[in-house]
């Protein structure tokens, strides 16, 4: 193995043989147009697909996109190459990446050529069936059946075929790698190949057969994908082929460069892009709006209502939104759908049937909905409710389970449905207007929500073509964005701070049992220079009165469990608590069954007499304590927290009750949003606030303690999220 690794490290970044053609297959789509399959060499051996076939490109290639063949079993799905590539050749090398998706018994012809003599006798043909690589020359075949690394299904394999005719030594060599540690190589003699090739047709992914009515031999088609197809004018050495494989398996070209990612933007412009990758949705708590992010750049954020869970365990890309029977969202700024628009979405089937008749993807303020679904007598249909109040339904496959991609194309009074990239049926109604509600209807906000999981909802300001829909489906099905560009999933076990801002932070780690310093929590992540680019301050509390101050911390200062800290940064930064111990929810008398943990609060130092007045300068009646939320996964409800004072547990409202007067029921959160650069961005809420009040991961909050806490142990019970 060591020898092999050493050998691999010295692999050449060149091939001596001249390259006749090189097809990256990175075009966004093929539809039969001349020269659409681009040869990247100077030879300009461009090609095109058979116009009646369904061959196109897919985003999940070995390097960027790939040619995708015969998904629907159409026989004449092929790429027609210039015959001159091999015509007259006595030797050549053909390399490709293959990803087969059919049955092991399929013939999977990946390259064939013939004369125009009307017979089925192939001039030369290569195919792979099961683990067998076969070359056919004028009816005589040679097969390799014992390669250690056979071509596997549903994964990319590198394949190289080098052929020399009799005059040059009569050899047919196969190099193959199917994810093995090294390439495999075998050669056989092929005495039948005795003269230069005489061909008039050269085809990828089909068995070209002149005797057949449609020029293709039935059953010889390739099911799957091909990528990085190359032709060389002579035999390429094994060392060179290994060098080629070694680069391409890493997604690089032979010269070691990484190709730029391919963006296949549909002709219709992207209007809205709800990726549903947020770490949590607040459902209106804390007065937070715009928590459903539009990634299109058009700023059509929406605000979640009721409970939408962010799910990273069951999503199409990164995270998804899991809806309950009442949840939906309201667009912060309505976006307008005109006469022609398209919507792409991933939905999880079957929906959770909540006893409702309708499950609606959104609506306008008055009549008219986005496309909807109806469950009636356990039969699912899809429908359109237009702006005039007309309503029509059509069928959808009731056996759908799991995630499926749906595209609705609305074109002047007609709506087409595509499921998983394929046209399903139409409804001769359409709708338009200002989209106000998402995932429910204005008809019945809480009664027609989608009640399922959904992901990657995009609106386009125009109609998408079938090719574009296929592209979106294939790309997103492979974890890519709608335009085929890669997606970076957001990290939810870390948080960001924007340049030139302050954050009141909580540290979601058990610093009681695993103490950490400023350096260990922040210093290991922050890229800037401590004290110059970023600083940490803690709140200090007077022991003589109720005033407070701030203390700048040094790198080696210890941080305290459950306290809030000011973190300021002049750079965009991200920090996490990956090197810490997760919180041990070991509290007793927990308000929720999930468990809880106690956080120490500093009580007042001075209990003013009843006639005392609050100077509102920190020296008055109250102590404002900076606490830090210790949960990391998702917010918890402030109503589920408890003050524990002198060993007795109180809800926030009970703590404020005049009979106790230990604390204010309300808390303050430092919530400056992106548009708010001021240092006064606090919001406040309490345990009874309609709309909710939540503690957020990585965030601190302010608690107001009253005079009756003097001399008492004061703790906060925070439930496990």
């Amino acid at each position, binding site marked *: 193995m060591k020898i092999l690794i050493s050998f691999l490290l010295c692999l050449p970044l060149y091939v001596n043989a001249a390259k006749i053609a090189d097809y990256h297959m990175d075009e966004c789509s093929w539809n039969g147009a001349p020269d659409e399959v681009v040869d990247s060499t100077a030879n300009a051996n461009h090609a095109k697909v058979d116009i009646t076939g369904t061959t196109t490109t897919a985003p999940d290639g070995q390097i960027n996109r790939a040619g995708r063949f015969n998904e629907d079993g159409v026989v004449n799905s092929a790429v027609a190459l210039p015959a001159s590539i091999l015509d007259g050749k006595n030797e050549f090398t053909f390399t490709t990446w293959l990803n087969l998706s059919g049955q092991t018994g399929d013939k999977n012809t990946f390259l064939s050529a013939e004369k125009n003599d009307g017979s089925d006798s192939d001039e030369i043909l290569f195919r792979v069936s099961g683990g067998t690589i076969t070359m056919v020359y004028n009816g005589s075949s040679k097969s390799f059946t014992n390669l250690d690394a056979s071509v596997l299904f549903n994964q990319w394999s590198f394949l190289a075929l080098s052929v020399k005719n009799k005059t040059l030594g009569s050899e047919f060599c196969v190099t193959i790698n199917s994810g093995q540690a090294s390439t495999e190589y075998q050669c056989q003699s092929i005495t039948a190949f005795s003269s230069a090739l005489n061909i008039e047709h050269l085809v990828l992914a089909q068995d070209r057969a002149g005797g057949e009515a449609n020029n293709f031999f039935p059953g010889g088609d390739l099911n799957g994908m091909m990528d990085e197809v190359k032709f060389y004018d002579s035999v390429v050495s094994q060392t060179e082929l290994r060098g080629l494989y070694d680069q391409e398996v890493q997604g690089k070209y032979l010269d070691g460069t990484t190709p730029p990612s391919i963006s296949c933007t549909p002709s219709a412009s992207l209007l809205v892009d709800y990726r549903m990758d947020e770490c949590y949705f607040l459902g209106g708590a804390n007065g937070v709006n715009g928590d459903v992010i539009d990634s299109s750049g058009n700023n059509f954020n929406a605000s979640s209502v009721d409970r939408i869970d962010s799910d990273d365990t069951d999503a199409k890309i990164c995270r998804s939104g899991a809806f309950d029977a009442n949840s939906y969202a309201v667009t912060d700024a309505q976006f307008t759908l005109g006469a022609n628009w398209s919507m792409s979405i991933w939905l999880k089937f079957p929906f959770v049937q909540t006893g409702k008749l309708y499950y609606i993807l959104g609506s306008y303020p008055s009549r008219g909905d986005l496309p909807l679904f109806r469950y009636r007598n356990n039969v699912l249909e899809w*429908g359109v409710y237009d702006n005039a109040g007309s309503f029509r339904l059509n069928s959808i496959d009731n056996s759908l389970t799991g995630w499926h991609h749906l595209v609705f194309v609305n074109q002047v009074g007609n709506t087409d449905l595509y499921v998983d990239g394929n046209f399903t049926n139409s409804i001769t109604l359409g709708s338009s207007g200002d989209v106000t509600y998402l995932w429910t209807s204005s008809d019945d906000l809480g009664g027609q929500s989608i009640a399922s999981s959904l992901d990657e909802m995009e609106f386009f300001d125009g109609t998408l073509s079938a090719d574009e829909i296929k592209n979106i489906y294939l790309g997103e099905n492979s974890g890519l964005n709608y335009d085929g560009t890669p997606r970076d999933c957001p990290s939810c076990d870390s948080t960001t701070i924007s340049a*030139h801002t302050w954050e009141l932070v909580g540290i979601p780690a058990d610093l009681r049992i695993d103490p950490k310093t400023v350096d260990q929590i922040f210093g290991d992540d922050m890229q800037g220079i401590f004290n110059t680019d970023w600083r940490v301050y803690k709140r200090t509390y007077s022991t003589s009165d109720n005033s407070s101050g701030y203390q700048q911390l040094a790198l080696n200062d210890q941080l305290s469990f459950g306290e809030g800290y000011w973190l300021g940064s002049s750079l965009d930064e991200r920090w996490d608590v990956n090197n810490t111990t997760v919180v041990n929810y070991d509290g007793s008398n927990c308000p929720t069954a999930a468990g809880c943990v106690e956080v120490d609060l500093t009580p007042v130092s001075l209990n003013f007499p009843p006639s005392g007045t609050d100077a509102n300068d920190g020296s008055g009646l109250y102590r404002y304590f900076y606490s830090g939320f210790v949960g990391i996964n998702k917010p918890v409800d402030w109503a589920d927290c408890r003050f524990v004072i002198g060993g007795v547990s109180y809800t926030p409202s009970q703590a404020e009750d005049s009979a106790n007067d230990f604390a204010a029921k309300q808390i303050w959160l430092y919530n400056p949003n992106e548009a708010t650069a001021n240092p006064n961005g606090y919001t406040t809420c309490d345990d009874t606030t309609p709309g909710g009040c939540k503690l957020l991961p990585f965030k601190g909050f302010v608690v107001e303690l009253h005079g009756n806490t003097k001399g008492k142990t004061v703790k906060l019970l925070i439930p496990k999220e």
Partner: protein
Amino acid sequence: MFRKKIFIVFVGIVLLLSGCSESDGYSTSTVGDTEEIAVKKAPIIEVAPSNWYIRVVAEDISRALKTESAQLGELESNNATEKHTLKALAPFGGAYLDVVFTNPDGVDAGEYKVNFHTYQEYVEDRWAFTVKTDDDNETITLYWRGLYVLDPYQDEQGRERYKEYRSMTNPLLKHMKLVDTATGTEYPAVVGGIVQKYSFELINSKAREFEWVVTVDEVNIPKPVASRSASRIVLTKEEIVERKVDVTQRRAEQFDLSKPPMFIEQK
């Protein structure tokens, strides 16, 4: 088309014969892969709620200041004011923009961020609030995010909680108006079903008084020339980028690592 007509006639006959054509509100028939016409998708008509709130948003666009934590509303519970009125804190210095309810009835004198009243049917109700800022020469925009309709319930611990439905279309919005106390100008909460925005200039003043009024009859104010739809003002991508650049530059100019944001001035 002919088959469709037959189908419609057939459905009509069935509905007539059944005498309860809309027992579930809908009437359709399965027709395989072909398009099907339903008689109706009956909308459920929204009604004016007795538990609700409005969230008042104030924004100083030129300085990128925004506050949206002021809530006013009505609840059926008798102690709505006492239970759901949250106090405000004095501005902490520096640039600020705030919306507060000053000396509302039923609670101690002071400034509050949240003010609920007990619901009374067919009675006009008013909330006085103040928009405060540190700069006496700014243009402030007020808007609201539709009506938050509340559905009270008791949770598993016996506490009163609320399910919340946010509606841009609830008929109660037609009974609401904003009154600029300084000018007497009245603005409807919605015009033609579209939630409005109201912009005003602070001239030699750091505060402006307003009232939010719920009227018995529908508000009937001619569409104000200066009113704008809250939801239709959409920035272009370029404007969004420009605004972010402006905010970033302003942050950089104002940022001081030696002064963390104050929460109540130090002694």
